[in-house]
Structure formats: structure tokens, C-alpha cells
């Protein structure tokens, strides 16, 4: 099944976190020599995401370090801890749309 734009953004953030921590995992003795290959994969992944979404992701990343934040069990944005409107709940959520937190503007990701 084709991945949604939100799922691709989540994969992009996962890849960015991996790239950020390369030197630390190397220091712990892990093999992490193909950094260039990973950066290339990152670019290929970013190319699959609509440009305005990538821009917005990059902007949020600059501002907050993590552009996408999980939503807590009590329907709270775990970035700014604002309670989200009940119309935005995990019930029936399919990750088809990209939704921004009304409080901090980060992209929301429901874990359940």
C-alpha cells in the first residue's frame, strides 16, 4: 500500500534523527560508515513528499528540532501540551491528512 504524506514525513524525521546521532553511535562502537548513502536516501525520500510539506517540515525542524510530535493518550499535543479539540481524536484516524497543532504549529502524529 502506498504511504501517506504523513507517513513519509514521519519516516523523514526518523531518518533525520538517525543522521543527527551518527557520531554518538560510532563512539559507542557501532558500524555507521555509509553516511553518504543515508543522506542520499533522505533526499530521495524528501522528493516523494509534496514540496510545501517539506518546507513546512524544515521550518518547524529549525524552530523546534522535532517537527512532528506525538499526541498523548489524553489528546494533548506533546510538543506544547495544549488540549486538542475533540474533533481531532485518534478515533477513525488513518494518517491520511497532515494536521498541525493549533497551539505550537507542529505536525501531529497519533500513536494509537
Amino acid at each position, binding site marked *: 500500500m502506498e504511504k501517506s504524506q504523513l507517513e513519509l514525513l514521519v519516516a523523514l524525521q526518523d531518518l533525520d534523527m*538517525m543522521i543527527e546521532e551518527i557520531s554518538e553511535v560510532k563512539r*559507542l562502537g557501532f558500524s555507521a560508515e*555509509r553516511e553518504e548513502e543515508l543522506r542520499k536516501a533522505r533526499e530521495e525520500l524528501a522528493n516523494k513528499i509534496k514540496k510545501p510539506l517539506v518546507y513546512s517540515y524544515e521550518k518547524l525542524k529549525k524552530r523546534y528540532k522535532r517537527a*512532528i510530535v506525538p499526541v498523548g493518550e489524553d489528546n494533548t499535543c506533546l510538543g506544547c501540551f495544549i488540549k486538542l479539540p475533540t474533533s481531532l481524536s485518534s478515533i477513525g484516524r488513518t494518517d491520511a491528512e497532515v494536521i498541525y497543532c493549533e497551539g505550537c504549529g507542529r505536525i501531529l502524529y497519533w500513536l494509537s
Partner: protein
Amino acid sequence: MTNEELITYFDEQLFLPDLKATSKDELFEEIVDQFVKIKYLKNREILLDMLRRREQLGSTGIGKNVAIPHGRTTSASDVMIAFGKSKQGIEYNSVDNKPVNLVFMIIAPPQDENNIYLPILGKMVEILNKSKTRSKLMEAETYEEFIDIILKG
């Protein structure tokens, strides 16, 4: 990080003493499916993608029949560690090309409050560097035995 602190991140439901997988891909699926089964995760594909990408960077098979696949993912809410053991060995493309018998999969959320992910990873490497501990882990049949070995490791 102390061994006492480390054991608080293990979970009996993520203790898999008889892995069926024979390849790296099968192994990742077997463990990730367990995370999904006990509801730690809703989207297995996102985690599988992250783990495969990590292998693209370099093998997490650290040699001496041990693998520590690891990474942060937006799809995780907490740090979680799964332990798996394979009697027959798993083809893993490890740094020493030996099959893997002991697996610790360490998954962390984007931000962990006390920043414990990297210390956990470091502690696991330290414990698994001891050949006596590796041999004992191969013999562990129950979760209690396993935790005791990690505590003393």
C-alpha cells in the same frame, strides 16, 4: 547507567527466547510484530523502515554472535527493549560475518525526557562485550534468569 536502572526498561512480553527467524528481515518482522501485538506500536511499517535504514548506514551486528538493532522513531512513545535468542543462528551480515544468536532491539521515541537512549545503548554494548555474559544469556530459559544475568553482567 547502572544495571539496576537498565533492567527497568525490559518487559517480559518482549522476552523472546526462541526466535524463528533465519534472516535479518524475518528477525525484524518477528520482533516488531511483538511490539505491535502488545500495543506499543500502531504502525509496524514505519519502525521496519527505520530499522532497515539503520542497516543501510552500517550493520548493527556487532560481532561475536550479537546484534543490537536500534534507533529513534516518531512512532514510539517510550524506550523499549526486546531480547531475542536464536539457537540456529540468523544470517545478519555482521561485522565479523558470523551468524547472530543474541539480539537486543532498542527503540526510542524522538525525545526521551531523561535522554536515556544513548546511555542504554552504551550499557548494552558494555554488558555484551563480556564473553561470560554472552554464554549465560544463551543458556537463559526464563525471564527471571535473563534479568539476573543482566543485573550481574
